[in-house]
Each structure stands twice: as C-alpha cells, then as structure tokens.
C-alpha cells in the first residue's frame, strides 16, 4: 500500500480550482467553518495500484496453504459405525429388535483395531446422523427456566395464565409435570459405550472413561442447575414424572456419581446443547492420558467396543457411530477445514498469477498511456 496522507486543510486553497476561492478569509469570519462542515477532515486516502494490491493475493495464498496442511496433518480420528444395518455387523440383532418401548437391554460388541497409537487425551464421541436436532420445533421444545432450577416450573399441574409456556409441548406433562420436559430431553441418547483393550495375550482391559468435564463449564454451572432447597434430589423431583422415553428418572441418571445427577448430569447437558446440523457427534467421555506418560493413551492394537444398544435410529435411516479423536491446540482433527484452506489459498495464489500476467500484458500500456496524457 502506498498511503498518501492528504491533510486537506493544508492544501485547501488550490489556485486553479475555482474563481471564487476565499475559504481562507472565511475561516476566521464564520464560526461554523469547521473541517467537518467543510468536508475537509484530514483523511488517509490510500492510493491503490497494481503494485500494492497484487501482493495481497500471494501473501494470503502463502499463509492459507500451510495453515491447511497443519489442519489436515494434526490429529487422529477413528470412526466406528455400530448401527447394525448390515446383517454381518454385530449390532444387527439389537438394531432390528429395538424400539423406544423396549425395556430389555440389548448389548453387542464391536471389534476394531488401532493402527496408530493415540497419544495424550483421547476424546470419545457418539455420532448420530439424519437426526434433525436443529429442527425449529425440536429446538424450541425445552424449558430453560426449569433446567435452570426454577422450582415453579416443576411444581405446577395446571397451566396458569402467566406460567403456561408452550415451550415443552407436547412433552410438557403426562399426569404430572415432566422433569426435564420437552422433546430434546425426551430423546436423550441412552446408549452405553464401553471400551476394552485386548492385550496381545487375549485378556480384556477396561479402559477408564471419564464422564466429567465433557460439558461446558458455563452450562454445568450457570445454565443448568438442580432445583435448590434440598440436597436429596429424590425429594426435589418428587411430584414430577420422568420423560416418556426415559427408563429412569432424572435424579438417577448417573448411578456412580451422585453429583452428576439431576439437571446437571453432563451427558444430559451435552445432549441438551443441540447440534447445528442433522449429522453430528457429541462428546461421550474422555480417556485421559496415562500418568506415567510412557505408553500412549490408546496403544495400537485390538479393541472391543461394548454397546448397550438402547437408542433406535433405524426408522429414520440414521446411523450411530463411536468416534475416537485426539485434540491438538486447534481442536479436533478437521480435514474439511484443512482442505478448504489449501483450496482457497491455491485459488488466491493462482488468481494472483493470472492478475499479474494481465497486469504485465495490459496494465502497463494502460498506465503509461495515462501518465503520458
């Protein structure tokens, strides 16, 4: 860029401009003769030429392409589809037999192997596809005040004039008010995933899955709160009924950790943070790196994924997946972003080349003509 600082107050009186100049004399006379009113504010007027603009294409191209490569290279991802669509897949039976009303658990185990060891913390996700979690009606079907611990939204039976929001329709109440109400909560993902490492000697080692810290801190502590007043959630949620599709009430979601129950159950919170697109993944748990740091978190080898198959997706042709991913400083591996960066960077660079050739072919003649005239 070749900036030219054009302080117009200084060159305001061009002799060749007009026959009736004299702004200078007026400056003293008229109090309202400010630079603003006379449109003579000092200003920076960049003078753009091919020499200043063309490098931008190359610079941006040269910045974007490496970023793209970094984004592609870093991070590892493994994706296991355990929906059980194929006859051959281990979960086929479960998927065929299951519906929401089933009370019988169905389990299946999926074998897979890791070709590369996963270092550092590994994040385990479950993924769903064709599940329109961003449908407007679905997104609206929740009661944020209830989830924030507002007792009144737990306790009423009858819609009063000021409190009857349609937010949770049609999952507002059956005979008792539902807690948590709404379609989102009602469709909580309830498959259980367990991961086992198979030692070369054949023995199975359960891999510890940490369920804490998978939800946003703000969600867990600000947005979602259990109704206060009593530490005993059973008492708090007395008089409410569980969502229709749930097997167990909200205060029994995590049998292992009593602090992870109620509305602040992290799985629940993660689910309630609706996805942007119909195909999405949600954080299921974290596999923390080994404290000694000598062996990778997930060494290469054979694994078994044990699925307690509860969640039906067959009706809408959905898919269920388990995803393992490492996370670098820029988040999880994101091949699309990397490719996009490389593409846009290259396009930029090529455009720069094309424009440069145009500049040499036509621009020069044009400019020299301007100058000579």
């Amino acid at each position, binding site marked *: 860029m070749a900036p*030219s600082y054009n302080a117009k107050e200084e060159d305001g009186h061009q002799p060749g401009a*007009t026959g009736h100049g004299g702004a200078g004399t007026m400056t003293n006379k008229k109090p309202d003769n400010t630079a603003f009113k006379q449109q003579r504010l000092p200003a920076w007027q960049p003078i753009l030429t091919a020499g200043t603009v063309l490098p931008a294409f190359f610079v941006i191209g040269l910045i974007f392409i490496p970023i793209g490569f970094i984004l592609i290279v870093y991070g590892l991802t493994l994706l296991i589809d355990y929906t059980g669509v194929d006859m051959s897949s281990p979960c086929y039976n479960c998927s065929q037999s299951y519906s929401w009303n089933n009370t019988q658990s169905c389990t299946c185990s999926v074998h897979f192997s890791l070709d590369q060891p996963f270092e550092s913390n590994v994040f385990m996700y479950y993924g769903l596809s064709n599940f329109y979690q961003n449908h407007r009606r679905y997104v609206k079907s929740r009661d944020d005040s209830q989830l924030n611990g507002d007792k009144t939204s737990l306790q009423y039976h009858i819609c009063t004039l000021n409190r009857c929001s349609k937010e949770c329709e049609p999952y507002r109440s059956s005979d008792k008010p539902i807690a948590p109400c709404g379609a989102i909560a009602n469709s909580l993902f309830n498959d259980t995933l367990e991961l086992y490492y198979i030692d070369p000697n054949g023995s199975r080692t359960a891999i510890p899955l940490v369920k804490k810290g998978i939800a946003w801190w703000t969600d867990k502590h600000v947005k979602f709160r259990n109704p206060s007043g009593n530490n005993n959630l059973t008492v708090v949620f007395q008089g409410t009924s569980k969502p229709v599709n749930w097997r167990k009430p909200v205060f029994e979601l995590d049998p292992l950790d009593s602090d992870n129950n109620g509305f602040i159950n992290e799985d629940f919170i993660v689910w309630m943070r609706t996805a942007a697109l119909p195909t999405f993944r949600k954080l299921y748990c974290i596999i923390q790196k080994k404290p000694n740091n000598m062996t990778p978190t997930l060494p290469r080898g054979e694994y078994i994924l044990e699925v307690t198959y509860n969640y039906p997706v067959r009706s809408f042709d959905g898919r269920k997946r388990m995803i393992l991913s490492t996370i670098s400083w*820029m988040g999880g591996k994101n091949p699309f972003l990397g490719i996009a960066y490389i593409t846009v960077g290259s396009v930029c660079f090529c455009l720069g080349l094309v424009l440069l050739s145009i500049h040499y072919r036509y621009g020069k003649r044009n400019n020299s003509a301007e100058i000579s005239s």
Partner: protein
Amino acid sequence: MPSSNLVGNRERQFVVVIGFSLTLYLTDITWEVRANSRHFHKHRRRRSFLCFRWGRYADNVVRSFKYSPLTFLPLTLYEQFQRAANLYFLLMVVMQCVPAISSIPWYTTTIPLVIVLSVRGLKDLANDLVRSLTHPPITRLSPSLSSLTNWRGFTNVNSLFFLSIPTPFSLCLPFYLSPSFLLLFAPHPTPSLPLSLPLSGIVLCEEPNSRLYTFRGELHWRGERHPLDSEHILLRGTVLRNTDTAFGMAIYTGSDSKILRNVGQLRVKRTQIEKVLNKVVIGVMLFLLLMALLLAVGSGVFQGRVSSQIEVLSALTRGNSPIYTAFLTYWSYVILLSPAMPMSLYITFEMIHVLHSLFIGWDVEMRGGVERSIPAQARNTSLNEELGQVGHLLSDKTGTLTQNRLLFRQCCIAGNVYGKDELPSLCPTSASPQTLDLSWNPFSCGGLYLSDQRLVDKLRGQQCTQSRQFLTTLALCHTVMTEWRNGEGAPVYQAASPDEEALVGAARELGWVFLSRTRDSLTVSELGVKRHYQLLTLLDFTSQRRRMSVLGKTDGGLKLYCKGADIVILERLQKDCPHLESTERALDLFAQSCLRTLCIAERTVSEAKWEEWSKTMAQAAMTTRNHDDMLEQLHDDMERDLKLLGVTAIEDRLQDGVPETISLLRQAGLKVWVLTGDKKETAVNIGYACRLLDPDTRLLEGDELRQLLQSPDPEITFSKGKGTELWCVDRERAGEKSALVLTGPELVNIHYRSKDLENLLIQEPEWGARFMSLAGLCQSVLCCRVTPGQKADVVTLVRKNTASITMAIGDGANDVNMIKTAHIGVGLAGVEGGQAVQNADYALAKFSFLQRLLLVHGRWSYRRIAVFLRYFLYKTCSFALVHIWFGFFNGFSAQSLYENWFIILYTVFYTAMPVECLGIFEQDVSAECSLSWPELYKVGQRQELFNTWLLAATLLHALYTSLVLFFMPLGVFYNSALDYQTMAVTVSIASLFSATIEIILLTRHWTKWSVAAMCVSFGLFFKSPVDYYFPGVSQNAFPSPVVWFTALLTAWTAVLPSFTIRTLNIILTNPDRHRHGPVELQKSGFRRGDSHRRSSYAMSQGRGIGRLITSGASRRITFPPVDRRGTLGDNVTLAGQTQSDDAPKNITENGSSK
C-alpha cells in the same frame, strides 16, 4: 420609504371586507363572497381538530406548522404508515407476534421499527418547529421594492383581492414579482362608486385553486352582474402602484389564496437512484417470497417424507397436516428472510440525504451575497445524489446568467470610439468606474461605466454637434418615465427595459438630463439648459421593427430621433452618410467584446412633411383593412434618410464566474441549454459571452433547422450536410461545434402557422425525438422568445426523450414552471423575489456556485449514496439469505442461524456505522480535484455507480456470500462435536468479517471517524456479549481456534470475487490517477468572436409601453419640483381623461398622436 411604512399607510385607506357565504349558483362558480357581512357568515369559517376539518372558508392566518402537542402523535403515525415500507414492517411485527409462525421474536422488527418511526417523527417535528419559529416563507413574498421604491404602492400581505376601486385613476399597475407591467382595471361600475361605506355586493367565483393566471367570477352589485376575470384580481404579495387608495374585497383568504395553493405544493420528486432502488427492492421482495414458498413446500414434503419417520419430530408436529405446516412455515420464512430488506436502509438513506443537504448549506464557498451571508440551501433534501447525474442544464438567461444590469460601456460617435475597450469578463468587479469628474453636473448620481474624458470635453466644449445630437437622442428617444422624490436632486427613472434605463442614465451623467414627460412633451436639461420638446409622435419598438423613433419639435424645427438595431438602421441611412465605415468598424469591435449595440440616428423633418404624414396617419387609423400594413408603410416612410450619429455599446453584465462555470460544466459533459424570453440576438450574444458557444460554433436555426428536422433521420442529414463544409473535419467535431437556436415564433410564421415549433416538438413525439437526437449532437441549444409555459415544455421534451437528468435554474417567477418540471430545480436567491426559490429544490446565491453544487457536492453525493446503497443491500442480503441454505439442513423448519439479538444489532450497530461514515465522508477525490477533472462527473451521467445491472451483480455477490457463509461452516461443522450455537456464532463472525472487509475495500477516504466507527462496531460485537440468548457461548466459542479459522476463511472466500474484480479494475483502469492532486487546467484563452458576428439590438422583451405613455391616460406623472406649478393643469386634464375607462389596449397610435 421603507415598505413597512407603506403597508401601514395604505391599509388605513384600504377597506378589507371579509365575509363569506355559500350558495350554489353555477356548477363551477360556487364560491360566494359577500361584502361586509362578517358576522353573518362567521360560523362557516374553517375549523379543525386533529386531522379533521370542517367549514368552508379558511381564516386569514397562514399556519406554517402542522403539529400541535396533541396532534403530533396521530398525525405523524398516520403520515408514516402511508409509506409502504413502514406498513410492511408493521405487518412483520404483527406476524411475529403469532407464536405459531414466529421464527424470530417480535422485538427483532419492533425495536428497529420504533426507532425508525421516532427518528423520522422527530425529524418532521424539528422541521416543523423550525418552520414555525422562523417567518412563514409566504410572508417573504412581499416584493422587493428596493430598486423601484419611487412607485407608490402597498404591500398586500393579506390574500387574494378583488380590487374594486382604484382611485382617482382607473388604471393601476400592480407590480408582480417580475418586472413586467400588468394592467389592472376595475370593472365598469366602480369608478362612480361613492366612498361612503359599507358597500354591499356579492362575488361569485371559482372554488379556490392554484391557477395563478386565470380567474372566473361575477360581481353582483346593485342588481347588475359584472363579469370578472384575472385582470380584476390582485394576488397576495402584489404591489399596487400609481394609486394611493384602492377598495377591494377579499375573495380567498389564508390557505385558500392562489399563491398559497400554488406554492405549497412541492411535487414529490423521486431520484433515479430511488426508482432503481425501489425496483430492486421489489425484485428482492419477490425473490424472498418465492424462496419462502419453495422452502415452505420443502417443509411440507419434509414433514410428509422425513419427519414422519423420526418419532421425535413426528411427535412435535402431530395433528398438523403437511400442508398446514407448510402454510405456517411459509410465513415463518417470510419473517425470517425479512431482515434482507431492513428498514434501517430507508432511515439511514434519509439521514445521509439530510446530512448531505446540510453540507451544501454549510459550504462557505457557496455562500453568496453581501458578506457571504446567503448560504446555499437544499430545500429538498432527497435529491442530492441526482445532482451528480445531471445531463441537461436548462438555464434562464436574465438574472441567472446575466445580472440583469446593463451598463453603458462604450459608444462611437462620428466614428470615434469612446470608452475603454475592456472585456467584460476580465473586470468582473469594476466597482469604481467613476474616474470621470462629473461634479459639474448637478444631476449626476453615479453609475456611469464609460469613462472617457475626451467625450466630456467634447460635449462641454460645444464643439461637436454630432455628439450633442447623439446625447439628445439618448435623452429623448425612449419610453422611460421619471419620478421625483422629495429631497432628491435627480429624477429616478422607471423603464420598461433595463437597456433604456442604462441609456437614459448615461445621458443624464453626461449632462443631458431627461427631467420629465407629459403626454406630449419632454423636458430635458441639456448641460444645465432646460429645453422642452414637443412630442409629436412616438413610433414604438416592436420585435419586427427593432427600432423606435421619437418625433420631437423644438424651436429649431422638427426632428426624428431614432435608435435601433444596426441592421435596421444602417439600411435606412441617407446616402453618403459620413463615418459609416468607421462606425461599422466600431460595431464589429463592440460585437467582439460581446456588447449589445444600438445605432443612433436622426433626421430633420420638414413641417410640411409632418403635416402630410400625420394626416395619412389619421386616415390609416380609420381604415380597418390592412391596418397593420399601412402603419408599417407609414413608419417606414418616416424612418428613412437617417443620419447616423453613432453607436451605443451596452454590456449585459454576466454574473461572476458564469463563463468559467459554463465551460467547466460543458467539460463535465453537461448540455447547457439557455431558455429565454429574449430575442434571438440577445440570447446568442450572451451565449458567446458566457462561453456556451465557441466563436466558431455554427448556429443551426430557422430554415436549416427545420429542414434537418423534416428529414427522416436528422442525424444522418446533419452529418452529411456538415461534410460539405470545409471547417468540418469529422462528424464528431461537427456535433461539438454547432448549436441549435430555436426561435419558436419565427418558425411558426414560416411553415407551421397553426403551431409554433415547440408545441410541435412537444405534441408530436416523433418530432420531439428527432429534435432531441439532433440536439444530442450539438453542443448547446438556445431557445429564445419562449414563454414560461414553453420553458416547462422544453424541459418536458428533454425528460421525455432522453434518460438524462434535467436541471433547471432560474431566478424569477417566469422560471417557476420550468423549475418545477425539471428533475431538479434550482432557484437563484436574492435578486428577484422568492418565487423561484420557493419552488426550487435548491437555492443558490450565484450561478457560478453551480459548479461546486454539481461537480463537488453532487458528485460526492452520488458516489456516496450509490456505494452506500449497494453495500447496504449486499450486507443485509448476504446476511439474511443464509437462512435459505440452512433450511435445507434443518428440515425447512425456519430455524434461525443467528442469535435473536444479533439479527437486530447486526444492521443497527455492528455494521451500520462504517457504512454511515462512508455515506457521509467518502471522497474519491478532493473538491479541488473534482473541479479540475470535470470529466469525472460523467460517471454519474452514465449511471455507472448505480444501475440495475450493477445492483444485480451486487445481489449476486450477496447470494454468493450467503452461500459461502453457510456452506463453509457447514463443511466444518458437519459431523463435528460443535453445537448449533457455536455455529451460529461462527457464521455471525464470518458475516461480520465479510461485511467489514467489504467496507474496508470500499472506503477510500479514511477520516478519524471512519476508523473510529470501524473499531467501535467491532468492539460492540466482541465487547457486548454475543450471547443474549446463548449464555456461555462467547466463553466457549471465542477461545476455540476452529471458530476463528472458519470465520476467517469464510469471510475471505466471501469477498474474494469482489476483491479480484477490484484488483482487475485497478490494474486496467487505474482509477486512482485523479487522486494525486489537482492539475492546473490548461486555460483555453477566451478567444474573441469573429468579426462576422454582429451584436444584438439592445432592447429586451416584446412591445414597449409607448402607447401607454403617449396615451397619457394612465400615468400619475410626477414632475420636477420647480415645474409643478406649470404642469398642474396638464395633470387635471389627464385626470379627466380617465373617465373614459377605455382600456389602453384599445388606444391606437392614432389616438395618441392627437
């Protein structure tokens, strides 16, 4: 005498009878006014409450404000909801309140709507307050009497009057706002009216209307009916002269009066940009409605095919049929997509307009008048950008290009040229020309612009009879009248044309003082010696004759004093006239200096000849057949064998800077047309003087023009015809070097007896188109002898046949039509009343400010507004259309991709300020450069910055951006753990980035405000929580690099096309070449006219008032104090003559010479 005193004095004598009643009398003559029955009809007075009115007659108070505390709210709301846009947004608000379809909450539209309504309401209120605080503009209509204060008159600030009794003479001269005489006659019965009051009578007339020049009515008085027409009425603001007392009756009062009806209606003008914008807005609306429809169909299909399979979703829509869902979704999408057409567009647009108008008013370089006290004024605040697109400038001549001040500059007597040979343009401010010592002359009161001691010496030395005769002629041959005021040593001259005033004034300065005139005598003081001339006959000026003569009788015998156009006089000279050759040389010399010349000649007439001639004249007056021809013959007979005395040269003073301005405007690609009521010669002369015509410009006029127009394709004939001429090298040049001179009446007489040319051009589109295509090839068009109505017709002609923007500029009441008809009307403030300014969109103090108004303010405005609008559409469309694409991925459920508050704040805060700064501060080149590169103006004329195609490109770019804004994040977020709210924030940031990058690319003039606006907008987004409804998102999404990488890449990809095109533009056209600073213009020296060009006869306007003068019937004549005794008797006889109320129109030459 100050005019306020005048009002006071006269009103006491003036009986204003206000009283009204209504009877249905005739079908259209339904307005009844009764004299002196005030109490009787008082209850019919118009009253109003809020916006309801009843009653028939307006009271005589002219309210210039429309709001009261009580009526403000309902009135302003009523007015604002008449705008389609506001209604549309109100509809949106109502729809958003329906929960079933409300895709975004109600306040997203309500808050901006309330802001818009209150801003506009407050603006109207402020305007109204200003109007009510300052004088209502109408009262300023009271005419400026400064130059003519010797006329007895009064200002009638009341309303429209029917003048009943002018006394003691039946004839008064109401002085309208232009210096032309209109005669006013009382109807027949009135002169004998007793002065005893009250009168009684009924006037039945038309309903109040705006037609100034027509009136129909009847006076019922003492059982008789007298028809009334426009000659009997006085308009509000009229000055009545020549009478002390008049009785009248108010017919229309207050807001009913014709002037008010006429003035108050500023036609709503729409700029070309607005029209294009509206078209595009409607197009975008239709597109949005169509998209909403398609998405609604999609939602119906989705519900039928997909969501029925998903238990979760089917439960939500249980009970609704797909069609019903689609119906609801349609409206949801209409709401969701509505931010693409934000209402802030219109309000910001309006605010920028207002600010641009203020800039025009603030510009010190456009202040004119004494001490630069008159600022330029944008009376219509919504036309600014059109100032940058003007293609045709139609200008009045008198008072606009010229100062309407004629200066006696030079003369040639007996072959000797007196006076300095100065070019008028070189000494615009010769304020002190009085280098001559004229103290010997007691009547001298300054104002002589000819300074040549030789002439004075010659005159005083009694040596040269010819020069004495020359001045005698100047002092005698005219129709000027004098008025003597108390305490003044010299008479004040009242002339029908300024030329005469200049000539008689010059004679006075040089010692030949015209003292007074009666019906048949003239008194002149010649170097202190008082002489009476008996006025035998006065052969008046007409446009055909182009000369006037006075036959005077003194002791020395009879002499005919004649002055006239050179062509006319030179052919009537006696044989072997001395000094002919040198005088012709002088004529050429004067013509080169663009002076208006008159030849002065005399002839000695024998008594016998006069006797014979006057007899024949008397006979001729009796005959009715060939009356005009015979008169012509007789005049010709008298005005021959003249002896040439000399030539006068009068400078028609151009206004300051007019030639420079016109040549600059011509360079800027404007076609400057001059429309004048003057004769062709005058107009052409001025055309040369103000560089509208180049010295070698070929004038196409008369037959030639008609032949060209008759040919089927004038353009071809035109260029062919040119090809034969030597000086014409190529067609291009031929066009530049010719001008059309349109003299309507002349052409009529040649070929189209029924219609004059302009009517022909206007009424027959084919001819109009031909004429315009021809005019397009020429450098200018001069229309001479056009009436105010024809001026407007010419404007209409241009508007009809070209796409270019027309601007009309004028200063007088006769330009009002034109000013109102043109796209932009400019009135020159100051000189001639306020009529032009009242009706104009812009008021300037000087013509030369036009260059700044157009080339600087107009060009900037056009660029700013064009860029502003394009950018605004881009940013809102690209922002809102994202929802269309998102619909495909959320089951067409009208889910919004933005946080609710972001939708409001995006247009109001996050992206508004930088573009507002652009709309206010942007300057592609500085003011100085704009003026030194006038061709930059052509961008606006060609509509290069704002046209349908460019807007379509902008909208395509917006569409592309919206695609990128959605699909780039889609790729990133697809099958990822990032949630909906993070994606919303990412898309928000990306759209904000792309909008900001785009405005950075557009802003070429970075003031501190632009930088601040950019920072503040960005700061507002990141500082104020993004998460009004998305708690915690900013804390979780902002630290995430993916969000930033995505947003950056998206924004860059979105602006890449426009960046590339801009770069290409820079490479190929180097648009910044004008920014390096103003370049000294090559001043093309003002070449003098070629010698073949003769100057024009220096008499303005049509027929003179000679008859009136010589009839003697009408004038209140004042005399020099010493002479009062002697002429008293004369005065009495004059008064007696007025008993015959014959209109002076019927007084013939014959009668006058008796």
